[in-house]
């Protein structure tokens, strides 16, 4: 069953929906940022996700955790947007503004391995679209190749090949 906050938002409670946004915005934004590789696109997709969420919320029946359901919605919104617009060009921020790619939060050092995390985020953002999507979905988000193939609209073998390519490119970039 949906929890109380979700149930209230489903019933049209704007305050509850805003609270859902507060709770989930950072998680949604992180996924959008990594899938798009572009800070501005990630902001747009995050907005799209919550607008779509408002429309779709009533179809959530509590068959899975709300966060899992929302997670899949994010992936669908981002991938549909790319399919719809056909924008396949590399979305790499100018080198003089690299932090915009990885999010302002990463400008501050993270305990232990801050530098590596920033480099990795940047390297992920610079991957070709197809390789980045598969890498983010598989290695960061834990999807299987079968699911990725269905979500992205590619063959399972292509998904594996893109993952291999992404990992190789990342290792090369991080070793420079």
């Amino acid at each position, binding site marked *: 069953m949906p929890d109380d906050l979700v149930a209230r938002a489903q019933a*049209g409670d*704007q305050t509850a929906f*805003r609270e859902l*946004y507060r709770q989930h*915005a*950072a*998680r949604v*934004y*992180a996924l959008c*940022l990594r899938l798009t590789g572009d*800070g501005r696109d*990630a*902001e747009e997709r*995050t*907005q799209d996700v*919550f*607008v779509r969420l*408002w*429309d779709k919320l009533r*179809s959530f029946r*509590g*068959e*899975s*955790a709300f966060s899992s359901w929302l997670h899949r919605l994010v992936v669908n919104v981002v991938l549909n947007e790319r399919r719809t617009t056909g924008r396949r060009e590399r979305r790499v921020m100018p080198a003089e503004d690299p932090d915009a790619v990885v*999010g*302002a*939060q*990463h400008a501050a050092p*993270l305990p*232990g*391995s801050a530098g*590596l*995390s920033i480099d*990795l*985020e940047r390297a992920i953002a610079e991957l070709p679209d197809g390789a980045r999507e598969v890498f983010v979905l598989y*290695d*960061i988000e*834990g*999807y*299987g*190749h*079968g*699911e990725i193939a*269905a979500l992205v*609209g590619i063959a399972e073998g292509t998904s594996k090949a893109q993952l291999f390519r992404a*990992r190789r490119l*990342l*290792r090369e970039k*991080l*070793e420079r």
Partner: protein
Amino acid sequence: MNERELQDAVNRLPKSIEPPRDLWPEIEARIRAGSGSWRRRWYWVPLAAAAVLVFLLLARGERSAWDVTALAGRPLIGTTRLAASGRLRVGDWLQTDDSSRALIAVGRIGQVEVRPATRVQLVVASANEHRLALARGTIDAKVDAVPRLFFVETPAGTAIDLGCAYTLATDSLGKGLLHVTGGEVEFQTGRRSSRVPLGALMQIRPATGPGTPYVDDAPAPLVRALVAFDFERVGRGGGGGARATRNILALARPQDALSLWHLLQRVDPPLRGAVYDRLAALLPPPPGVTRRGAIALESRALEGYWTKIQRIHFRMVVLRGVKNIDPRTGLSVP
């Protein structure tokens, strides 16, 4: 940097990143502009927009119906007897008696044969979601579409199509059986779910929902042990089951790996090690899947293992009678 160092770095990435600015005001504005769902009245909506809306709703209503053909007897749609063919609209119930059968065209993605003594309702008919409710009886579904477009609700949970063909039977309380003959089906009740690939069956029960899937040639003692574990045990999450678990582990063969994969996620935590060890002995894990990761139920480990189990299982089923397949490796044996 090697593969492992990269993976470690990936694992350390934060799951959340705060957006650089508050996005809520724009979201709120877009929702207000694009939806009438906010609980307020929109006096400013022009009549022209209302006319367009009515037109769209009418057009949508026409699409929100599926074709039905009588295969035998005179099935009922609502209270109307179906002669040869008709339309099943969202909200309509289709009912067959002991001697009638019907065929429903699931939009453009497949078909469902409704066997005798079955009651089924069309719940959602849109391009992105095709949903039936099976109140009781038996259906045979064949769907050719991307995963998660076709759903069948039963009193005990929901069958989610992952691109497949299957037979689903249930009584009005939710006791039922799922038999998958092509592709794979996920069955979900609350947070509990099972994946059933072709050539496998799964018992379903009210409240508990999906049992542990098993291959269609599983020995009867193993099936009984699984049923005992799923539905008769007493303890946390629907059961205790150390004894039932031991029975299953003793009876399992390499080709029963898909059952043990589900069992690993359902036994009480202290038993996971024993289940993993038996699973690994019967069907070794693929590279990258560790005992620790699997016992911690890490999704990457479980998905990796499932991919291997599924691949071998698929080869065994489709090559049954054609080639001998080693159930531990999926390779042909003389």
